[in-house]
């Protein structure tokens, strides 16, 4: 260790509590920054990884307005479309309202063909197809609730009451379990038979359900833009106008239903950054003032303005890089647990290397910025004035 580097380290240890608290605040700030940025990038990655050959057809009014089932054969007849499946958001929960996850009524065979990302790892597709009350669940739900093949799963409805009366659960049976082959595919979905859904509802006052979305798979050479325009034009005069979007655009729209998440997250991240910047600048200014006398000694010994500038900058860099590295490391370590917490909104939450490099660059930048003022002051100090200052 060089003499000046040793001085840098010893100066950091001079006020241990302050240094520790400054580093601790940096750890928290960088953890938050990296986590928030990862939320945004994971959201983006989810949309980007959507399959280009899939389209979503929904009501032009809102995702919460259903479409007539009668639209399906008309959509299927559009050139360039290979397959269509009805989907409806069920919106129930298991045992307690906090146990919410995505449940969809779907056409089983078509859905499994449209979504090859679902690899069945327990049970079989046939078992799912044959069992009218059968459900296909993601292994994330198995992990969360401990369900296994053959289990009866009661789901309490909020949107589609069971004909047997209020408070009656819909009962399903686990027929197959899938594992997503893509990182950004939701491992916590429950898919069940459209037929069971429809027939059950027809027994009650609700009657036949509408369709939340039609999921469309295009033929290999189809032009998505052309197909979307054709579908939209088909229903331009009602009774329900539709909006066709690519799957990635649909996912973006879905996320923005919760507000402009990237904007809010970035704003919070920016606020965190400014707050920590002020705190570190303040700490470094205090440290610089305390070391004024020592700076005078260094200059009297023949150290240049540049040397003392570097001593102060290195102190700031040291604090910021240590705090930043620990914060980034913490964000990476907590990736699995945060990923589980946000999985219903963001699949495949990941602290990417680019986020870690972003954090590292920010830590270095913060260190340089926070150290610049005290270092500049130290460099410009007159030696005899510095020597005359009190310790």
């Amino acid at each position: 260790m060089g003499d000046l580097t040793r001085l840098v380290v010893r100066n950091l240890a001079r006020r241990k509590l302050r240094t520790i608290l400054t580093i601790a605040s940096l750890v928290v700030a960088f953890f938050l920054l990296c986590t928030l940025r990862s939320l945004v990038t994971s959201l983006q990655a989810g949309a980007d990884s959507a399959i280009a050959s899939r389209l979503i057809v929904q009501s032009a009014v809102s995702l919460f307005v259903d479409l007539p089932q009668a639209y399906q054969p008309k959509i299927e007849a559009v050139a360039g479309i290979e397959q269509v499946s009805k989907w409806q958001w069920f919106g129930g929960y298991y045992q307690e309202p906090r146990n919410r996850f995505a449940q969809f009524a779907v056409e089983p065979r078509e859905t499994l063909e449209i979504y090859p990302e679902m690899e069945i790892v327990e049970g079989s597709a046939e078992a799912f197809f044959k069992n009218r009350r059968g459900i296909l669940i993601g292994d994330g739900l198995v992990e969360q609730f401990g369900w296994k093949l053959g289990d009866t799963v009661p789901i309490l409805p909020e949107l589609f009451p069971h004909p047997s009366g209020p408070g009656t659960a819909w009962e399903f049976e686990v027929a197959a379990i899938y594992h997503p082959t893509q990182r950004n595919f939701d491992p916590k979905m429950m898919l069940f038979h459209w037929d069971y859904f429809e027939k059950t509802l027809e027994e009650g006052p609700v009657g036949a359900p509408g369709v939340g979305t039609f999921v469309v798979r295009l033929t290999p050479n189809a032009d998505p833009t052309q197909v979307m325009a054709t579908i939209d034009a088909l229903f331009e005069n009602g009774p329900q106008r539709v909006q066709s979007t690519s799957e990635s655009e649909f996912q973006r729209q879905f996320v923005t239903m919760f507000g402009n998440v990237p904007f809010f997250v970035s704003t919070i991240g920016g606020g965190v950054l400014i707050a920590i910047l002020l705190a570190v600048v303040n700490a470094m200014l205090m440290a610089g003032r305390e070391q004024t006398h020592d700076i005078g000694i260094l200059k009297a010994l023949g150290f240049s303005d540049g040397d003392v500038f570097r001593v102060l900058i290195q102190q700031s860099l040291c604090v910021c890089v240590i705090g930043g590295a620990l914060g980034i490391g913490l964000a990476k370590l907590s990736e699995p647990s945060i990923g589980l917490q946000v999985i219903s909104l963001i699949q495949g939450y990941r602290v990417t290397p680019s986020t870690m490099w972003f954090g590292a660059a920010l830590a270095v930048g913060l260190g340089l910025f926070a150290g610049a003022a005290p270092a500049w002051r130290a460099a410009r100090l007159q030696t005899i004035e510095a020597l005359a200052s009190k310790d």
Partner: protein
Amino acid sequence: MTSGIELKGVSKTYTRGGETLTVLDNLDLSMEAGRFYALMGPSGSGKTTLLNLIGALDVPDSGHVVVGGEDLGRLNRDELADWRAANVGFVFQGFNLIPVLSALENVSLPLALTKLSRAERRERAQYALELVGLADRMSHRPRQLSGGQEQRCAIARAVVSDPAFLLADEPTGDLDRDSADQVLELLRTLNSELGKTILMVTHDPHAAESAERVVQLDKGRLLGIAERTAEAR
């Protein structure tokens, strides 16, 4: 032999509270290399200011300061720093050791500005500390040393890079009599055996007795230079 110290028409003023204070007034002074000078005078006579100008810690308003043949007025800030590192060792009244470094680290600090290897720097610093009688205090921090030990450590730091000039500002001012005598003896040795040019500011007539010559200042002007015989010292 290295050239000594020449001051020609040196003036220095300070402005305090809107009032201009003349500290050095058109001072001419010549000091030989290899000699031990004591600089005396009442408070405010300009002793410390003169020392700061000779040590390139400050610059005059007018006049020339030539030390060891170098006209300091021709050097910029960085060049002055380099010149200080190579030519001057300072000993201050308040010791001015860096509190977070050990005695050995303090003493080796000026050597960071040389091309010496780490091992050579350590060896030299150890030798300097042995020279001042602190061989058993190398790993101590300044606050773990007595005042006399701190000042001897500061002297070791001042001489470790082998400068030609040693500038001491009241080096015994904060010390008891025994410690002061040890420090003065050390300065005499550095002058007589290593040929260092020493300029020591002091109020203490007893300390001034160690010097070969006593420079008297008053109100920024030179009153005279008195030579002390070897017997008197």
